[in-house]
C-alpha cells in the first residue's frame, strides 16, 4: 500500500484529482480544495498515480 498525502496550501482547486480518481479525492464545497476520501491506495492503482501526476499544483504525492 502507498500513503496518499495532500498539501491543501499548495492546492489550486483545479479538480483534476476528483475528476481522475473520484473514489479517492473530493473537493471542499467552499473553495474546491482537495479532500482525501482515502489515505491509502494499492501500489498499482493507476487512477491514483494519474491523479498525482496530473495535479497542476504539485499538491499530491504518494509515500510508500
Amino acid at each position, binding site marked *: 500500500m502507498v500513503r496518499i498525502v495532500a498539501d491543501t496550501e499548495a492546492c*489550486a*482547486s*483545479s*479538480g*483534476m484529482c*476528483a*475528476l*481522475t480518481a*473520484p473514489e479517492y479525492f*473530493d*473537493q*471542499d*464545497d*467552499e*473553495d*474546491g*480544495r482537495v479532500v482525501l476520501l482515502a489515505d491509502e491506495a494499492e501500489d498499482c492503482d493507476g487512477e491514483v498515480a*494519474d491523479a498525482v*501526476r*496530473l495535479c*497542476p*499544483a*504539485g499538491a499530491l504525492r504518494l509515500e510508500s
Partner: protein
Amino acid sequence: MSTPADAAVSTGDIPYGIPLERDHPFDPPAAVMALHRGSEMRRMRYYPEGRLGWLVTSHRLARKVLADTRFSSTLGGPAQVPIPMPGVEAYLDFEGDFPLTPGMFIEMDPPDHTRLRRKLTGVFTVKRMKQLEPRIAEHVNERLDALAAGPRPADLVREFAVPVPAMMICELLGVPYGQRERFEADARAIFTTDETGEGKQRAMLNLFAFIGELVAAKRADPTDDLLSDLAADADLTDEEVAGMAILLLVAGHETTAKMLALGTMALLENRDQWDLLRERPELMAGGVEELLRYLTIIHTGLIRQVKEDFEFEGHQIKAREYVTVYVQTANRDEAHFIEPEKLDVTGDAKGHLTFGHGVHQCLGQQLARMEMRIAFAGLIERFPGLRLAVPAAEVPLVTGQSFYGVAELPVTW
C-alpha cells in the same frame, strides 16, 4: 532603429516571434513544429524591439515552466509580445510597469492570485458541475431545437457554439444574457491580436463600466448568482469584483465556443471519429480530452516573465526576459503522446496542457468539459448525418485572436 525584418536577418537562427502561419487547419504551424524538433527550448526575439527571450515547445519543459512560479504571470515592465500586434511600437516608450487590472488574477502571482482565485474555486468544482449538468443539457437542447427548426445550411458558430457557453456563464455570473450586445464586442476585443493596445484598454474600460453597474445593482438587490456573492464579499473591492467577473465572462465566452465549432469540424473531417462517438457514447469523456489535445486552441501560447536571474535546464535565464510556452507543440510531443498527429477519440490524451498547468490551470475547466460532453453528444445524437455545407478549405479560420478556431461553420443535414 532596426526593423523586425532586419533583426531576423542579422540574428541567424534566432526566430523573431512565433511563425503562426498554418498549412492545415488542425495542425500547429509547421514552422513551430520544426523549431520544436530542433530543441525543447530556444532563444526567441520579442516584439516590438527584438529583445531576447525564450520559446518553450516540448511537453516536458512546458509542464516544468508552468508549474514554476519563478516564471511570473505578472507582465509588468516593458511589454514584450511574441507576435507583431498593431500599435505595439507604443510599448517602446513605456518606461514603468504596466498597470495591473484589479481582479484580473490571471495576471497575478501567489499570494495575490491565490486570494482571488479561491473566492471562485468552490463554484467550479467537479461536483458543482455535475449538479449543473441538467441545466447545461436544457441550454443545449434549446439550441438544437432552434437549429432543427431553422433554415439549412446553418452557421454552427452563431447558432450553437457561441450561445451554449455564453448562456451558461451569463447565468452562473448573473449577467443578463439579453444584454450581451453591451459586452460581446468588447469581450472579443480583449483577445484580438489585431486590436491596438489602446483599443483593448477602451474595451476593458467599457467592460468595467458595464459590470460595475451590475455589481452595484446586485449589492442593492442580491440575486442567486456568483456576481451577487462576490458583491457581498467584504474582502473584495468593487473593482476587484468587476475584474474577476470580466475575466470569467470573457474566458467563458470565447474558449468553449471555439472548441465546440472547431471540434465539430474536426469530427466531421474525421468521419470515423464522429461515427465512433455516435456508436459508443461512453467514449465521449475521453473524446473531449482528445479534441482538447489535438486542436489546442491556445493559438499564441502562454506567456511568462522572469523576475530574477536563475539557471533553468542548463540555460541562464535573466530577470525581465519573457518566456512563451507553446502549448500546441507540447500537445503534439511524441515524447509524451502516442501518434500525437492523429485524432483518436479512443486514445489517451491525459496530461494535455490545453487548460495550462500550475496554479493558473484553467479555473473553468470542469465547466468547459461538461459543456463539451453534453454539447457534442447532443449534436451527434440529434444530427447524426451532419456535414459541412462548404468544402473544408472554404471554412474561414480565426487566426487573429489568442484563441484559434473557425469564424463560421456552415453545416447541413
